[in-house]
């Protein structure tokens, strides 16, 4: 896998952080929507946006991974608000 900061590294240097899923507003969403966000995960194969961490440098980044083929399409740093 290629870390956007540290370059290509063995997969053993990385930790999976889960699929990126938008969190619904807990103050306005329904109980069903909140329960779906908390308890359910999408297991269907396809290209997923996932959090990964390069553990020696603690660099968190986004990886687009095709879970049907187990191929990493691309990796990049998260550009959202922080």
């Amino acid at each position, binding site marked *: 896998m290629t870390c956007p*900061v*540290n370059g290509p590294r*063995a997969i*053993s*240097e990385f930790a999976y952080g889960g699929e990126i899923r938008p969190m619904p507003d807990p103050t306005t969403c329904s109980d069903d929507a909140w329960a779906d966000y908390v308890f359910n995960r999408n297991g269907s194969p396809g290209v997923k946006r996932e959090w990964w961490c390069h*553990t020696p440098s603690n660099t968190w980044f986004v990886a687009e991974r095709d879970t049907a083929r187990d191929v990493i399409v691309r990796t990049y740093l998260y550009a959202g608000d922080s």
Partner: protein
Amino acid sequence: MSAIAFENVSRTPRAGVKGPGAAAWIAALDLPVPRAPNSWLPLPGGLIARLGLTEFLVEGSEAAKLAAPLSPGVYPVLRQDTALVLHGARLNELLLETCSVDFRALNLSTRPVVLTSMAGVGVTVIPGEGGGMPCCRIWCDSTYGEWFVETLTGVAGELEQPGHPCNQGVTA
């Protein structure tokens, strides 16, 4: 004589900061700022390394400058590392056996800093060359230090065994 020399330099003064304001704060202290992520610059009696995008490590007497009051967006990083200097003709073989980065492929003129995993321990490495032989500085979390040094010295000892695959066809 051992093919790889180990020197423990953990007692060398060092300090670290990180954060979005760290680069500007370092520059205001009259310290040079490495422009590229994962690169380093020499200082009088030490060095400054940029770890990733916004973290800095200063080692040597200049580390005392980082005791200055911090600006907004600058955060202290505790540096109680185990720090080693390794040097010797068989060093690259030791590195190849213990981590997945091929240090021979790096361009030393760019002063690279490598953050990787060595023998399962997260490390920061600055590769170099001295006296025509490879050398490197390695920092790791000091809680792993004793085990890490034992492991590296054990592997270095195995490299010197006559029956080791690395020694096939090698004459002293």
